[in-house]
Protein backbone atom coordinates (compact mmCIF):
# COMPACT_ATOMS: atom_id res chain seq x y z
CA UNK A 1 0.00 0.00 0.00
CA UNK A 2 1.39 3.40 -0.96
CA UNK A 3 1.24 6.40 1.32
CA UNK A 4 -1.41 7.95 -0.89
CA UNK A 5 -3.59 4.81 -0.68
CA UNK A 6 -3.22 4.69 3.07
CA UNK A 7 -4.27 8.32 3.24
CA UNK A 8 -7.29 7.59 1.01
CA UNK A 9 -8.29 4.75 3.25
CA UNK A 10 -8.07 6.86 6.36
CA UNK A 11 -10.18 9.59 4.76
CA UNK A 12 -12.80 7.04 3.70
CA UNK A 13 -13.00 5.70 7.23
CA UNK A 14 -13.32 9.21 8.64
CA UNK A 15 -16.29 9.94 6.36
CA UNK A 16 -18.06 6.68 7.15
CA UNK A 17 -17.22 6.28 10.82
CA UNK A 18 -19.83 8.53 12.48
CA UNK A 19 -22.67 6.95 10.53
CA UNK A 20 -21.38 3.43 11.16
CA UNK A 21 -21.00 4.02 14.89
CA UNK A 22 -24.53 5.42 15.19
CA UNK A 23 -25.95 2.62 13.04
CA UNK A 24 -24.16 -0.03 15.05
CA UNK A 25 -25.65 1.43 18.22
CA UNK A 26 -29.17 1.85 16.85
CA UNK A 27 -29.70 -1.10 14.51
CA UNK A 28 -27.03 -3.84 14.58
CA UNK A 29 -26.66 -3.64 18.37
CA UNK A 30 -30.38 -3.90 19.15
CA UNK A 31 -30.78 -6.66 16.54
CA UNK A 32 -28.21 -8.77 18.41
CA UNK A 33 -29.35 -7.65 21.83
CA UNK A 34 -32.93 -8.79 21.26
CA UNK A 35 -31.72 -12.38 20.78
CA UNK A 36 -30.00 -12.16 24.15
CA UNK A 37 -33.09 -10.59 25.75
CA UNK A 38 -35.26 -13.36 24.36
CA UNK A 39 -33.21 -15.90 26.30
CA UNK A 40 -33.91 -14.15 29.59
CA UNK A 41 -36.82 -13.78 31.95
CA UNK A 42 -36.94 -10.07 32.48
CA UNK A 43 -39.73 -8.48 34.50
CA UNK A 44 -38.65 -4.93 35.34
CA UNK A 45 -41.57 -4.41 37.74
CA UNK A 46 -40.49 -7.29 39.96
CA UNK A 47 -36.78 -6.74 39.50
CA UNK A 48 -36.48 -10.17 37.88
CA UNK A 49 -33.63 -10.63 35.39
CA UNK A 50 -32.34 -14.15 34.84
CA UNK A 51 -31.43 -16.53 32.06
CA UNK A 52 -34.06 -19.01 30.89
CA UNK A 53 -32.37 -20.26 27.74
CA UNK A 54 -34.89 -21.28 25.13
CA UNK A 55 -37.73 -21.40 27.64
CA UNK A 56 -39.76 -18.67 25.94
CA UNK A 57 -39.44 -20.38 22.58
CA UNK A 58 -40.49 -23.71 24.04
CA UNK A 59 -43.53 -22.00 25.51
CA UNK A 60 -44.37 -20.27 22.21
CA UNK A 61 -44.30 -23.60 20.39
CA UNK A 62 -47.38 -24.70 22.36
CA UNK A 63 -48.92 -21.25 22.94
CA UNK A 64 -52.36 -21.10 21.25
CA UNK A 65 -52.30 -17.29 21.29
CA UNK A 66 -48.95 -17.27 19.49
CA UNK A 67 -50.19 -19.61 16.75
CA UNK A 68 -53.34 -17.57 16.37
CA UNK A 69 -51.24 -14.41 15.96
CA UNK A 70 -49.00 -16.26 13.52
CA UNK A 71 -52.02 -17.31 11.48
CA UNK A 72 -53.49 -13.79 11.51
CA UNK A 73 -50.13 -12.33 10.42
CA UNK A 74 -49.85 -14.73 7.49
CA UNK A 75 -53.48 -14.27 6.38
CA UNK A 76 -53.15 -10.50 6.69
CA UNK A 77 -49.92 -10.47 4.71
CA UNK A 78 -51.05 -12.74 1.89
CA UNK A 79 -54.50 -11.19 1.45
CA UNK A 80 -53.28 -7.62 1.74
CA UNK A 81 -50.33 -8.02 -0.63
CA UNK A 82 -52.33 -10.01 -3.21
CA UNK A 83 -55.13 -7.43 -3.31
CA UNK A 84 -52.67 -4.55 -3.48
CA UNK A 85 -50.81 -6.06 -6.39
CA UNK A 86 -53.91 -6.74 -8.46
CA UNK A 87 -55.53 -3.37 -7.72
CA UNK A 88 -52.26 -1.48 -8.04
CA UNK A 89 -51.57 -3.03 -11.42
CA UNK A 90 -55.09 -2.13 -12.53
CA UNK A 91 -54.72 1.48 -11.45
CA UNK A 92 -51.33 1.72 -13.14
CA UNK A 93 -52.79 0.46 -16.41
CA UNK A 94 -55.67 2.93 -16.13
CA UNK A 95 -53.26 5.79 -15.47
CA UNK A 96 -50.88 4.93 -18.29
CA UNK A 97 -52.74 6.77 -21.03
CA UNK A 98 -53.72 9.69 -18.78
CA UNK A 99 -53.07 13.07 -20.44
CA UNK A 100 -55.34 15.40 -18.48
CA UNK A 101 -54.84 16.05 -14.76
CA UNK A 102 -51.97 13.64 -14.27
CA UNK A 103 -50.65 15.48 -11.24
CA UNK A 104 -54.09 15.58 -9.63
CA UNK A 105 -54.54 11.90 -10.34
CA UNK A 106 -51.26 11.08 -8.61
CA UNK A 107 -52.17 13.36 -5.69
CA UNK A 108 -55.50 11.60 -5.19
CA UNK A 109 -53.76 8.24 -5.42
CA UNK A 110 -50.73 8.91 -3.21
CA UNK A 111 -52.70 10.70 -0.51
CA UNK A 112 -53.73 7.41 1.12
CA UNK A 113 -50.14 6.19 1.13
CA UNK A 114 -48.66 9.34 2.66
CA UNK A 115 -50.95 9.61 5.68
CA UNK A 116 -49.77 8.46 9.11
CA UNK A 117 -51.03 4.93 9.85
CA UNK A 118 -52.77 6.25 12.94
CA UNK A 119 -54.79 8.68 10.81
CA UNK A 120 -55.81 5.80 8.53
CA UNK A 121 -56.86 3.84 11.60
CA UNK A 122 -58.96 6.74 12.88
CA UNK A 123 -60.47 7.33 9.43
CA UNK A 124 -61.56 3.70 9.08
CA UNK A 125 -62.74 3.44 12.67
CA UNK A 126 -65.18 6.21 11.86
CA UNK A 127 -66.16 4.74 8.47
CA UNK A 128 -66.89 1.37 10.12
CA UNK A 129 -68.80 2.87 13.07
CA UNK A 130 -71.89 0.67 13.47
CA UNK A 131 -74.51 3.36 14.20
CA UNK A 132 -74.38 5.96 11.46
CA UNK A 133 -70.93 5.21 10.05
CA UNK A 134 -70.38 5.84 6.34
CA UNK A 135 -69.99 2.18 5.32
CA UNK A 136 -73.23 1.01 6.89
CA UNK A 137 -75.13 4.04 5.54
CA UNK A 138 -73.90 3.47 1.99
CA UNK A 139 -74.36 -0.32 2.05
CA UNK A 140 -77.58 -0.13 4.05
CA UNK A 141 -76.20 -2.71 6.48
CA UNK A 142 -76.39 -2.78 10.31
CA UNK A 143 -73.02 -4.51 10.75
CA UNK A 144 -70.53 -4.10 13.56
CA UNK A 145 -67.50 -4.42 11.29
CA UNK A 146 -64.72 -4.16 13.83
CA UNK A 147 -66.62 -5.95 16.60
CA UNK A 148 -67.45 -9.08 14.67
CA UNK A 149 -64.99 -11.99 14.82
CA UNK A 150 -65.56 -12.83 11.15
CA UNK A 151 -65.61 -9.29 9.72
CA UNK A 152 -62.83 -7.61 11.72
CA UNK A 153 -59.87 -9.12 9.87
CA UNK A 154 -61.30 -8.46 6.38
CA UNK A 155 -62.17 -4.90 7.49
CA UNK A 156 -58.60 -4.42 8.69
CA UNK A 157 -57.22 -5.81 5.43
CA UNK A 158 -59.35 -3.38 3.42
CA UNK A 159 -57.94 -0.46 5.41
CA UNK A 160 -54.39 -1.72 4.84
CA UNK A 161 -54.94 -2.25 1.12
CA UNK A 162 -56.33 1.28 0.90
CA UNK A 163 -53.15 2.81 2.22
CA UNK A 164 -50.60 0.57 0.53
CA UNK A 165 -52.06 -0.04 -2.93
CA UNK A 166 -50.93 3.43 -4.18
CA UNK A 167 -47.31 2.41 -3.61
CA UNK A 168 -47.72 -0.61 -5.91
CA UNK A 169 -49.64 1.45 -8.46
CA UNK A 170 -46.91 4.10 -8.56
CA UNK A 171 -44.18 1.55 -9.20
CA UNK A 172 -46.07 -0.22 -11.95
CA UNK A 173 -47.08 3.11 -13.49
CA UNK A 174 -43.49 4.37 -13.51
CA UNK A 175 -42.35 1.17 -15.21
CA UNK A 176 -45.16 1.32 -17.77
CA UNK A 177 -44.08 4.83 -18.77
CA UNK A 178 -40.61 3.55 -19.66
CA UNK A 179 -41.91 0.96 -22.13
CA UNK A 180 -41.30 2.50 -25.57
CA UNK A 181 -44.36 3.07 -27.75
CA UNK A 182 -42.53 1.19 -30.52
CA UNK A 183 -42.97 -2.05 -28.60
CA UNK A 184 -46.72 -1.64 -28.72
CA UNK A 185 -46.69 -0.51 -32.33
CA UNK A 186 -44.82 -3.69 -33.21
CA UNK A 187 -47.39 -5.76 -31.33
CA UNK A 188 -50.21 -3.95 -33.15
CA UNK A 189 -48.55 -4.53 -36.53
CA UNK A 190 -48.37 -8.23 -35.67
CA UNK A 191 -52.10 -8.10 -35.06
CA UNK A 192 -51.91 -8.83 -31.33
CA UNK A 193 -55.19 -8.38 -29.48
CA UNK A 194 -55.46 -6.21 -26.38
CA UNK A 195 -55.34 -9.17 -24.02
CA UNK A 196 -52.51 -10.80 -25.95
CA UNK A 197 -50.53 -7.54 -25.82
CA UNK A 198 -51.06 -7.38 -22.07
CA UNK A 199 -50.12 -10.99 -21.51
CA UNK A 200 -47.14 -11.25 -23.81
CA UNK A 201 -45.77 -7.71 -23.83
CA UNK A 202 -46.80 -5.66 -20.78
CA UNK A 203 -46.80 -8.35 -18.10
CA UNK A 204 -43.33 -9.78 -18.87
CA UNK A 205 -41.88 -6.25 -18.94
CA UNK A 206 -43.52 -5.50 -15.59
CA UNK A 207 -42.35 -8.79 -14.10
CA UNK A 208 -39.20 -7.58 -12.35
CA UNK A 209 -41.00 -4.54 -10.89
CA UNK A 210 -43.86 -6.71 -9.67
CA UNK A 211 -41.44 -9.12 -8.04
CA UNK A 212 -39.53 -6.37 -6.21
CA UNK A 213 -42.77 -4.73 -5.10
CA UNK A 214 -44.22 -8.06 -3.99
CA UNK A 215 -41.23 -8.82 -1.79
CA UNK A 216 -40.94 -5.31 -0.40
CA UNK A 217 -44.65 -5.14 0.41
CA UNK A 218 -44.55 -8.62 1.97
CA UNK A 219 -41.80 -7.70 4.40
CA UNK A 220 -43.62 -4.46 5.18
CA UNK A 221 -46.91 -6.26 5.84
CA UNK A 222 -45.20 -8.78 8.13
CA UNK A 223 -43.90 -5.96 10.35
CA UNK A 224 -47.04 -3.77 10.19
CA UNK A 225 -48.15 -2.53 13.58
CA UNK A 226 -49.75 0.90 13.87
CA UNK A 227 -52.90 0.29 11.81
CA UNK A 228 -54.08 -2.82 13.68
CA UNK A 229 -52.89 -1.60 17.04
CA UNK A 230 -55.01 1.55 16.81
CA UNK A 231 -57.91 0.31 14.67
CA UNK A 232 -58.78 -2.95 16.46
CA UNK A 233 -56.13 -3.36 19.15
CA UNK A 234 -55.98 -7.00 18.10
CA UNK A 235 -59.64 -7.58 18.93
CA UNK A 236 -62.29 -8.82 18.92
CA UNK A 237 -61.17 -11.90 20.87
CA UNK A 238 -57.71 -11.78 19.27
CA UNK A 239 -59.10 -12.20 15.76
CA UNK A 240 -56.89 -9.40 14.41
CA UNK A 241 -53.95 -9.83 16.78
CA UNK A 242 -50.79 -10.06 14.69
CA UNK A 243 -47.39 -11.14 15.99
CA UNK A 244 -46.33 -7.49 16.24
CA UNK A 245 -49.34 -6.62 18.41
CA UNK A 246 -48.81 -9.71 20.59
CA UNK A 247 -45.15 -8.80 20.98
CA UNK A 248 -45.99 -5.21 21.89
CA UNK A 249 -48.59 -6.24 24.46
CA UNK A 250 -46.15 -8.67 26.05
CA UNK A 251 -43.34 -6.12 26.08
CA UNK A 252 -45.07 -3.02 27.30
CA UNK A 253 -48.46 -3.98 28.70
CA UNK A 254 -47.74 -7.17 30.63
CA UNK A 255 -44.14 -5.92 30.89
CA UNK A 256 -42.43 -9.22 30.09
CA UNK A 257 -39.39 -7.93 28.23
CA UNK A 258 -37.82 -11.34 27.67
CA UNK A 259 -40.97 -13.08 26.46
CA UNK A 260 -42.01 -10.15 24.23
CA UNK A 261 -38.52 -10.08 22.75
CA UNK A 262 -38.84 -13.76 21.81
CA UNK A 263 -41.92 -12.91 19.72
CA UNK A 264 -39.98 -9.95 18.32
CA UNK A 265 -37.24 -12.37 17.25
CA UNK A 266 -39.81 -14.48 15.39
CA UNK A 267 -41.00 -11.39 13.50
CA UNK A 268 -37.40 -10.43 12.84
CA UNK A 269 -36.57 -13.85 11.37
CA UNK A 270 -39.71 -13.90 9.21
CA UNK A 271 -38.94 -10.45 7.84
CA UNK A 272 -35.26 -11.18 7.23
CA UNK A 273 -36.20 -14.31 5.30
CA UNK A 274 -38.21 -12.17 2.87
CA UNK A 275 -35.56 -9.43 2.97
CA UNK A 276 -32.90 -11.91 1.88
CA UNK A 277 -34.97 -12.82 -1.18
CA UNK A 278 -35.59 -9.12 -1.82
CA UNK A 279 -31.87 -8.29 -1.72
CA UNK A 280 -31.03 -11.16 -4.04
CA UNK A 281 -33.55 -9.93 -6.58
CA UNK A 282 -32.35 -6.33 -6.29
CA UNK A 283 -28.75 -7.40 -6.84
CA UNK A 284 -29.62 -9.56 -9.80
CA UNK A 285 -31.55 -6.70 -11.37
CA UNK A 286 -28.69 -4.31 -10.62
CA UNK A 287 -26.30 -6.67 -12.33
CA UNK A 288 -28.41 -6.91 -15.47
CA UNK A 289 -29.38 -3.22 -15.58
Amino acid at each position, binding site marked *: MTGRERQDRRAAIAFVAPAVVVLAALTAGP*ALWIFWLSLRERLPVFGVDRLTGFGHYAFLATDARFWSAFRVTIIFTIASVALELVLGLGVALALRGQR*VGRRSALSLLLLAWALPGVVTARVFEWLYYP*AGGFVNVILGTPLNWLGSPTLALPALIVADVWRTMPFVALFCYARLLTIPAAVYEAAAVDGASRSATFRFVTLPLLGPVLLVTLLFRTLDALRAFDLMFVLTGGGPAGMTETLTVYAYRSLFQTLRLGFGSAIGVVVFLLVMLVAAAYLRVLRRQDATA
Partner: protein
Amino acid sequence: MRRRPLAADVAVLALLTLYAVPFLWQLLTSFKPEAELLRVPPLWPSRLTLEHYGVVFAQSAMPRALANSLAVGVLTTLLGCALGVPAAYAMATLRVPGAGALMLGIVASTAFPQIATVSPLYLVMRGLGLRDTWAALVLADASFALPFVIWLMTRFMREIPRELSEAAALDGAGRWLTLLKIHLPLTAPGLASVALLTFLFAWNEFLFAFTFTATEASRTVPVALALFPGVFEVPWGDIAAASILASVPPVLIVVLLQRWLVRGLLAGSLTE
Protein backbone atom coordinates in the same frame (compact mmCIF):
# COMPACT_ATOMS: atom_id res chain seq x y z
CA MET B 1 -50.26 3.70 -28.59
CA ARG B 2 -53.65 4.96 -29.60
CA ARG B 3 -54.66 8.13 -27.83
CA ARG B 4 -57.62 7.53 -25.62
CA PRO B 5 -60.66 9.80 -25.45
CA LEU B 6 -60.87 12.62 -22.91
CA ALA B 7 -63.82 10.88 -21.25
CA ALA B 8 -61.51 8.06 -20.16
CA ASP B 9 -59.19 10.57 -18.47
CA VAL B 10 -62.13 12.13 -16.66
CA ALA B 11 -63.39 8.69 -15.61
CA VAL B 12 -60.00 7.80 -14.12
CA LEU B 13 -59.95 11.08 -12.19
CA ALA B 14 -63.46 10.40 -10.91
CA LEU B 15 -62.50 6.91 -9.77
CA LEU B 16 -59.42 8.20 -7.98
CA THR B 17 -61.57 10.83 -6.26
CA LEU B 18 -63.77 7.98 -5.05
CA TYR B 19 -60.61 6.28 -3.83
CA ALA B 20 -59.84 9.30 -1.67
CA VAL B 21 -63.35 9.31 -0.17
CA PRO B 22 -62.31 7.81 3.20
CA PHE B 23 -60.07 10.82 3.73
CA LEU B 24 -62.54 13.29 2.21
CA TRP B 25 -65.25 11.94 4.53
CA GLN B 26 -62.97 12.61 7.50
CA LEU B 27 -62.38 16.11 6.12
CA LEU B 28 -66.13 16.74 5.82
CA THR B 29 -66.74 15.25 9.29
CA SER B 30 -64.23 17.69 10.77
CA PHE B 31 -66.44 20.59 9.59
CA LYS B 32 -69.81 19.07 10.55
CA PRO B 33 -71.89 20.39 13.46
CA GLU B 34 -71.80 17.99 16.42
CA ALA B 35 -75.54 17.29 16.25
CA GLU B 36 -75.38 16.15 12.62
CA LEU B 37 -72.44 13.75 12.90
CA LEU B 38 -74.53 10.62 13.23
CA ARG B 39 -77.56 11.92 11.37
CA VAL B 40 -76.79 10.49 7.93
CA PRO B 41 -78.23 10.66 5.35
CA PRO B 42 -78.03 13.41 4.19
CA LEU B 43 -74.29 13.12 3.62
CA TRP B 44 -73.85 16.87 3.33
CA PRO B 45 -74.44 18.85 6.55
CA SER B 46 -76.77 21.87 6.83
CA ARG B 47 -73.80 24.13 7.60
CA LEU B 48 -70.04 23.90 8.05
CA THR B 49 -68.39 24.82 11.33
CA LEU B 50 -64.94 25.22 12.82
CA GLU B 51 -66.07 24.20 16.31
CA HIS B 52 -64.15 20.91 16.29
CA TYR B 53 -60.92 22.67 15.36
CA GLY B 54 -61.64 25.12 18.20
CA VAL B 55 -61.90 22.23 20.66
CA VAL B 56 -58.75 20.54 19.34
CA PHE B 57 -56.70 23.72 19.58
CA ALA B 58 -58.04 24.91 22.93
CA GLN B 59 -58.52 21.68 24.86
CA SER B 60 -56.41 18.87 23.45
CA ALA B 61 -52.77 17.86 23.38
CA MET B 62 -52.65 18.39 19.60
CA PRO B 63 -50.99 21.85 19.46
CA ARG B 64 -48.09 20.64 21.57
CA ALA B 65 -47.98 17.36 19.61
CA LEU B 66 -47.78 19.25 16.30
CA ALA B 67 -44.79 21.20 17.62
CA ASN B 68 -43.15 17.99 18.89
CA SER B 69 -43.68 16.20 15.58
CA LEU B 70 -42.33 19.12 13.59
CA ALA B 71 -39.23 19.27 15.78
CA VAL B 72 -38.64 15.51 15.74
CA GLY B 73 -39.20 15.35 11.97
CA VAL B 74 -36.81 18.20 11.21
CA LEU B 75 -34.14 17.06 13.67
CA THR B 76 -34.30 13.46 12.42
CA THR B 77 -33.91 14.67 8.85
CA LEU B 78 -30.97 16.90 9.78
CA LEU B 79 -29.23 14.17 11.76
CA GLY B 80 -29.83 11.60 9.04
CA CYS B 81 -28.41 13.87 6.35
CA ALA B 82 -25.52 15.21 8.43
CA LEU B 83 -24.23 11.69 9.13
CA GLY B 84 -25.57 9.96 6.04
CA VAL B 85 -24.38 12.28 3.26
CA PRO B 86 -20.65 12.11 4.09
CA ALA B 87 -20.95 8.34 4.49
CA ALA B 88 -22.70 8.08 1.12
CA TYR B 89 -20.00 10.26 -0.46
CA ALA B 90 -17.31 7.91 0.82
CA MET B 91 -19.23 4.80 -0.24
CA ALA B 92 -19.71 6.22 -3.73
CA THR B 93 -16.29 7.72 -4.42
CA LEU B 94 -13.67 6.43 -1.97
CA ARG B 95 -12.38 2.95 -1.25
CA VAL B 96 -14.08 2.12 2.02
CA PRO B 97 -12.71 -1.05 3.62
CA GLY B 98 -15.42 -3.73 3.65
CA ALA B 99 -17.72 -1.54 1.54
CA GLY B 100 -19.71 -4.46 0.14
CA ALA B 101 -20.55 -5.98 3.51
CA LEU B 102 -21.23 -2.55 4.97
CA MET B 103 -23.68 -1.66 2.20
CA LEU B 104 -25.41 -5.01 2.60
CA GLY B 105 -25.77 -4.37 6.32
CA ILE B 106 -27.12 -0.87 5.68
CA VAL B 107 -29.72 -2.04 3.18
CA ALA B 108 -30.66 -5.01 5.39
CA SER B 109 -31.16 -2.70 8.35
CA THR B 110 -33.83 -0.77 6.43
CA ALA B 111 -35.83 -4.01 6.62
CA PHE B 112 -35.45 -4.50 10.40
CA PRO B 113 -38.90 -4.61 11.99
CA GLN B 114 -39.28 -1.90 14.61
CA ILE B 115 -40.98 -4.36 16.95
CA ALA B 116 -37.67 -6.25 17.12
CA THR B 117 -35.50 -3.24 17.95
CA VAL B 118 -37.96 -1.47 20.22
CA SER B 119 -37.20 -3.45 23.40
CA PRO B 120 -33.41 -2.98 23.32
CA LEU B 121 -33.84 0.68 22.32
CA TYR B 122 -36.26 1.09 25.21
CA LEU B 123 -33.59 -0.14 27.62
CA VAL B 124 -31.04 2.19 25.98
CA MET B 125 -33.31 5.22 26.27
CA ARG B 126 -34.11 4.38 29.88
CA GLY B 127 -30.45 3.85 30.63
CA LEU B 128 -29.51 7.21 29.11
CA GLY B 129 -32.37 8.93 30.91
CA LEU B 130 -33.85 10.01 27.57
CA ARG B 131 -37.40 8.72 28.04
CA ASP B 132 -40.01 11.29 27.14
CA THR B 133 -37.60 13.57 25.28
CA TRP B 134 -37.23 14.64 21.64
CA ALA B 135 -33.73 13.17 21.71
CA ALA B 136 -35.05 9.65 22.26
CA LEU B 137 -37.35 9.93 19.26
CA VAL B 138 -34.73 11.53 17.02
CA LEU B 139 -32.22 8.80 17.87
CA ALA B 140 -34.75 6.00 17.46
CA ASP B 141 -35.99 7.42 14.15
CA ALA B 142 -32.39 7.75 12.97
CA SER B 143 -32.29 3.94 13.05
CA PHE B 144 -34.40 3.91 9.89
CA ALA B 145 -33.58 7.41 8.57
CA LEU B 146 -29.81 6.94 8.43
CA PRO B 147 -29.70 3.68 6.41
CA PHE B 148 -32.28 5.16 4.05
CA VAL B 149 -30.23 8.34 3.47
CA ILE B 150 -26.98 6.42 2.96
CA TRP B 151 -28.54 3.91 0.57
CA LEU B 152 -30.22 6.48 -1.68
CA MET B 153 -27.50 9.12 -1.59
CA THR B 154 -24.87 6.51 -2.46
CA ARG B 155 -26.89 5.62 -5.54
CA PHE B 156 -27.27 9.26 -6.55
CA MET B 157 -23.58 10.06 -5.99
CA ARG B 158 -22.41 7.04 -7.96
CA GLU B 159 -23.92 8.64 -11.03
CA ILE B 160 -21.56 11.61 -10.85
CA PRO B 161 -18.69 11.09 -13.32
CA ARG B 162 -15.34 10.36 -11.65
CA GLU B 163 -13.61 12.91 -13.90
CA LEU B 164 -15.37 15.72 -12.06
CA SER B 165 -13.95 14.83 -8.65
CA GLU B 166 -10.57 14.08 -10.21
CA ALA B 167 -10.56 17.50 -11.84
CA ALA B 168 -11.43 19.06 -8.51
CA ALA B 169 -8.65 17.14 -6.83
CA LEU B 170 -6.19 18.42 -9.43
CA ASP B 171 -7.32 21.94 -8.63
CA GLY B 172 -6.25 21.19 -5.09
CA ALA B 173 -9.71 20.78 -3.62
CA GLY B 174 -9.81 18.52 -0.57
CA ARG B 175 -12.44 15.83 -0.16
CA TRP B 176 -14.77 17.91 1.96
CA LEU B 177 -14.57 20.70 -0.60
CA THR B 178 -15.29 18.22 -3.41
CA LEU B 179 -18.30 16.94 -1.52
CA LEU B 180 -19.56 20.46 -0.86
CA LYS B 181 -18.81 22.00 -4.27
CA ILE B 182 -19.43 19.12 -6.64
CA HIS B 183 -21.36 16.18 -5.17
CA LEU B 184 -23.80 18.10 -3.05
CA PRO B 185 -24.95 20.56 -5.74
CA LEU B 186 -25.20 17.82 -8.37
CA THR B 187 -27.27 15.57 -6.12
CA ALA B 188 -29.34 18.41 -4.62
CA PRO B 189 -32.63 17.25 -6.20
CA GLY B 190 -31.98 13.73 -4.94
CA LEU B 191 -31.11 15.04 -1.49
CA ALA B 192 -34.34 17.04 -1.46
CA SER B 193 -36.29 13.85 -2.20
CA VAL B 194 -34.44 11.90 0.47
CA ALA B 195 -34.92 14.64 3.07
CA LEU B 196 -38.61 14.92 2.22
CA LEU B 197 -39.21 11.18 2.64
CA THR B 198 -37.17 11.04 5.84
CA PHE B 199 -39.29 13.83 7.28
CA LEU B 200 -42.48 12.07 6.20
CA PHE B 201 -41.40 8.74 7.77
CA ALA B 202 -40.49 10.49 11.02
CA TRP B 203 -43.77 12.46 11.02
CA ASN B 204 -45.80 9.26 10.56
CA GLU B 205 -43.78 7.05 12.92
CA PHE B 206 -45.87 5.55 15.72
CA LEU B 207 -44.31 2.55 17.48
CA PHE B 208 -41.17 4.25 18.81
CA ALA B 209 -43.05 7.44 19.63
CA PHE B 210 -45.74 5.52 21.50
CA THR B 211 -43.14 3.59 23.50
CA PHE B 212 -40.59 6.26 24.36
CA THR B 213 -42.94 9.09 25.28
CA ALA B 214 -44.87 9.37 28.51
CA THR B 215 -46.38 12.85 28.62
CA GLU B 216 -47.44 15.72 26.41
CA ALA B 217 -43.90 17.06 26.67
CA SER B 218 -42.72 14.80 23.85
CA ARG B 219 -45.80 13.02 22.44
CA THR B 220 -45.95 13.31 18.68
CA VAL B 221 -49.03 13.74 16.51
CA PRO B 222 -49.72 10.02 15.85
CA VAL B 223 -49.46 9.28 19.57
CA ALA B 224 -51.73 12.17 20.55
CA LEU B 225 -54.22 11.04 17.90
CA ALA B 226 -54.13 7.42 19.08
CA LEU B 227 -54.70 8.53 22.66
CA PHE B 228 -57.27 11.19 21.80
CA PRO B 229 -59.54 11.24 24.82
CA GLY B 230 -63.29 10.86 24.93
CA VAL B 231 -65.12 11.39 28.18
CA PHE B 232 -68.51 9.74 27.70
CA GLU B 233 -68.61 9.00 24.02
CA VAL B 234 -66.15 9.06 21.17
CA PRO B 235 -65.76 12.69 19.96
CA TRP B 236 -65.78 11.80 16.24
CA GLY B 237 -65.82 15.42 15.09
CA ASP B 238 -62.86 16.40 17.25
CA ILE B 239 -60.96 13.26 16.22
CA ALA B 240 -61.67 14.09 12.57
CA ALA B 241 -60.31 17.61 13.06
CA ALA B 242 -57.22 16.23 14.81
CA SER B 243 -56.72 13.71 11.97
CA ILE B 244 -56.87 16.47 9.40
CA LEU B 245 -54.27 18.49 11.30
CA ALA B 246 -52.06 15.39 11.50
CA SER B 247 -52.41 15.03 7.72
CA VAL B 248 -51.38 18.55 6.76
CA PRO B 249 -47.67 17.84 6.06
CA PRO B 250 -48.32 14.58 4.16
CA VAL B 251 -51.01 16.29 2.06
CA LEU B 252 -48.76 19.27 1.31
CA ILE B 253 -45.96 16.91 0.31
CA VAL B 254 -48.19 14.87 -1.98
CA VAL B 255 -49.78 17.89 -3.64
CA LEU B 256 -47.03 20.51 -3.76
CA LEU B 257 -43.82 18.49 -3.64
CA GLN B 258 -45.07 15.50 -5.59
CA ARG B 259 -42.19 15.46 -8.05
CA TRP B 260 -39.60 15.07 -5.28
CA LEU B 261 -41.70 12.56 -3.40
CA VAL B 262 -42.12 10.35 -6.45
CA ARG B 263 -38.45 10.54 -7.39
CA GLY B 264 -37.37 9.52 -3.89
CA LEU B 265 -39.87 6.70 -3.73
CA LEU B 266 -38.88 5.24 -7.06
CA ALA B 267 -35.16 5.52 -6.33
CA GLY B 268 -35.71 3.86 -2.97
CA SER B 269 -36.75 0.47 -4.16
CA LEU B 270 -36.30 0.33 -7.90
CA THR B 271 -33.38 -0.28 -10.14
CA GLU B 272 -33.49 1.75 -13.30
